């Protein structure tokens, strides 16, 4: 199809689709009219049954924890996929060798002021504290492992932006990053399977629930939230490492 024919074909189809949607939405419940019962029941029972003040995470990591296991592995598989697609191969090795040179080059090009450097360092500290806080309080306040992990993973990026590429390289190449990623992912499955040894079903909350509102409360919800935090931190750091390397190589090719 020519570009023009495709556009016309698509627009006609889209118009038809829009008509079908308009027809279907005639019977949609009005905005804000929630008919339940899932939301109604879960908001009533979650605090009492799970000792969690964040009902969203009580659903994510407990009531529907099995979905979240799958979602965590969607992220894990995506990272694996990116690593696989960007892997250095025999014919690409020459490029990889230029890699380190280009990086030095890049550093020279980008002078960083002292003000920026100092303020970035301060920011890194704040980000790490905030990220750990968010990941650790998943059962209490909005947030949890996914959100905390993303904040934590941004910390090395700030290090990179402050011109400290060497430290960035050291952080992202650490085997601890891969350990966090894989350990967090496998850990979720293992916590789920641990329940089987107590004769309970998979992903049953087998840890004492503690006092509502305490940091160590709501049993496996807190544990899983922390594990997800580890996985997401590791995964995003690996992603950034891979993409940045690719950008540096591409940057070198352009010259």
């Amino acid at each position, binding site marked *: 199809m020519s570009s023009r024919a495709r556009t016309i074909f698509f627009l006609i189809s889209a118009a038809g689709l829009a008509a*079908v949607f308009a027809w279907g939405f005639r019977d949609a419940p009005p905005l804000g009219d929630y008919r339940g019962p899932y939301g109604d029941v879960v908001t009533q029972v979650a605090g009492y049954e799970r000792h969690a003040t964040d009902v969203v995470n009580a659903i994510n990591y407990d009531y529907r924890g099995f979905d979240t296991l799958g979602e965590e592995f969607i992220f894990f598989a995506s990272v694996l*996929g990116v690593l696989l697609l960007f892997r250095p191969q025999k014919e690409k090795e020459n490029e990889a060798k230029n890699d380190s040179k280009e990086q030095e080059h890049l550093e020279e090009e980008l002078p960083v002021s002292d003000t920026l450097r100092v303020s970035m360092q301060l920011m890194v500290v704040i980000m790490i504290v905030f990220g750990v806080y968010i990941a650790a309080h998943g059962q209490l306040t909005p947030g949890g492992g996914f959100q905390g992990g993303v904040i934590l993973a941004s910390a090395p990026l700030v290090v990179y932006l402050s011109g400290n590429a060497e430290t960035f390289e050291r952080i992202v190449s650490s085997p601890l990053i891969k350990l966090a990623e894989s350990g967090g992912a496998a850990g979720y499955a293992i916590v789920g399977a641990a329940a089987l040894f107590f004769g309970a079903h998979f992903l049953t909350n087998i840890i004492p629930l503690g006092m509502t509102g305490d940091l160590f409360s709501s049993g496996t919800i807190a544990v899983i939230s922390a594990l997800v935090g580890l996985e997401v931190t590791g995964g995003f750091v690996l992603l950034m490492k891979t993409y940045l390397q690719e950008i540096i190589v591409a940057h070198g090719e352009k010259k």
Partner: protein
Amino acid sequence: MTATTMFPLPIAIPLAVAAFIALSGKLLGRRFSDALAIATAAANLWMTISILRATWLQPQTYWFGNWWPRAHDVALGICFTVDSVGASLAVLASLLTTAGLLFSWEIFEDTENHFQPLMLIFMAAMCGFSYTGDLFNLFVFFELMSVAAFALCGLKTLEPAPLQGAYNFGLVNTVGAFMIVMGIGLLYARTGALNFAQVGRSLGSSSDALVLLAFLLISVGYMVKAAIVPFHFWLADAHAVSPSPVCVLFSGVMVELGIYAVARVYWTMFQGGLAAHTRELRAILLVMAAITAIVGALMCYAEHHLKRLLAFSTIAHAGLMLAGVGLLAPKALGGFSLYVLSHGVVKGGLFLCAGIVLHRLRKIGEDHLHGEGKGMWWTAGLFLLGAWGLAGAPPFGTLLGESMISDSAKEFHQAWLPYIFMFAEIVTAGAVFRATFRIFFGWGELAPTDRSSQIEEKPETDEEEENVPAVMFVPAAVLILLGIALSAVPNLRSTAEAGAQLFTNQFTYAQAVLQNVEPAAPALTAPEPLTSSIVRSCIALALALLLALGSLFHKRIGGWLKFTHSLELGNPILRKAHSGHPGDYVAWLSFGTALLGGMFVWFLRR
């Protein structure tokens, strides 16, 4: 350990092992990762078989986190509801993954141990997809399956084609995924539930525009995965570039899972509301099935890139499988599940054979390989057997599936359906016969070339070897022979039909899930005689051979056999539609959705 307590393991164990291999694979070496992955897949095979045996005629429900449904049918948790249809698909997924991993022992030197974990994740996702009793959980596993599949599809990053193929695959499937989420959202807005049984009960026999729109969006989303025309364009592109062991999973089970999902959502949630319009819905689905079978078969015969040829044959057979679901009857659905199993192993075996050709002959184009395969008689034999299986001739299991679907079609006065089966079987089997005769026997004219065949494919193995390693040949042979062995299982047809009766009964399904009431095992009915199916399939086999020979020798024989040549050259309009441009594919996807939606509005509204 009872079978029920095993339900989460075929998902949890491969996922944990995948994470372990991704972490320590480099340290422990390629061979260790391979062995561990193969052992995990084999263990999965054993577990899924045990689960199948336990749920054979006795579906069972497993609530994650012990969250049993509360008063008034409110399910807060997620459940697996395993019945024979789903359980057998999980067995197929584990079997094909095991075969694929064995086959890859010799190939892919530089995947840095990312290949095995992705295969294990893919397998776990397919098992979860087959077992789940929850609408959103089905989508989660659909996504997990897709993400692993996209990455595996683009594995050979040194060529430009795999990235293009993976991109088309990813793009079209993601548009499909959007539709599914939207459909789930609409259903949730109406019912406030995500459990199949609970949604089904909540909808009851009511259906309105919103529910119909949800049904449209969810079924189109899964039909994209199922490669139903006109949502099928991504499939051939993805197969042509994927590594052979990955093609085995795509064609052998992933596509089939898309059709399974349409069946599952229809029978657990929508059938009550659509009961008054069963006839119209049946007609719509059968027309789609027939178009898919015809388009797939015609494109299949016009291909000379061996993997693309097999990919289009999968589209044709996906159309036949959709007919099994689309008849909306237990007998046809039982036929569907037998057809999926036997087609899955045969097609899986054929893709492994294509992998062997690429390994030994370093090429994949039929036009480049004329007579090159002389001496590889064992592989040639497997190809011929595979084509035999595609023709649905005895003693292959495809015959049993076809006979049940055809019998059911006759009951609904759709006597034309068996001829669609015959057409697709003749043409797809004929294409494989034709390629085999050219490559391994060097018969007849040189094949005309086409674009994809010219682009060719880089070999997947490092060095040329003089022989075919056992890890490649044995999985291929075992898969194809399983297609025969399947039909030796006693009472297969009556059990499949009984399983399908449980699958299609919305009332007992919901009772089993929400009230823990075990459904009564349906009585086994005596299967109908196979005579007419055997006659039809033998004619199909003979015509397939004739078609292949006609293409090879049309110049010498001439006359009326000329049509076989034009069939081989393909229909230019049809060919042009398969342009490889993702924009075209999305335009077709919107067109198909709008058209199907229009038909739903016209025929299925109150």
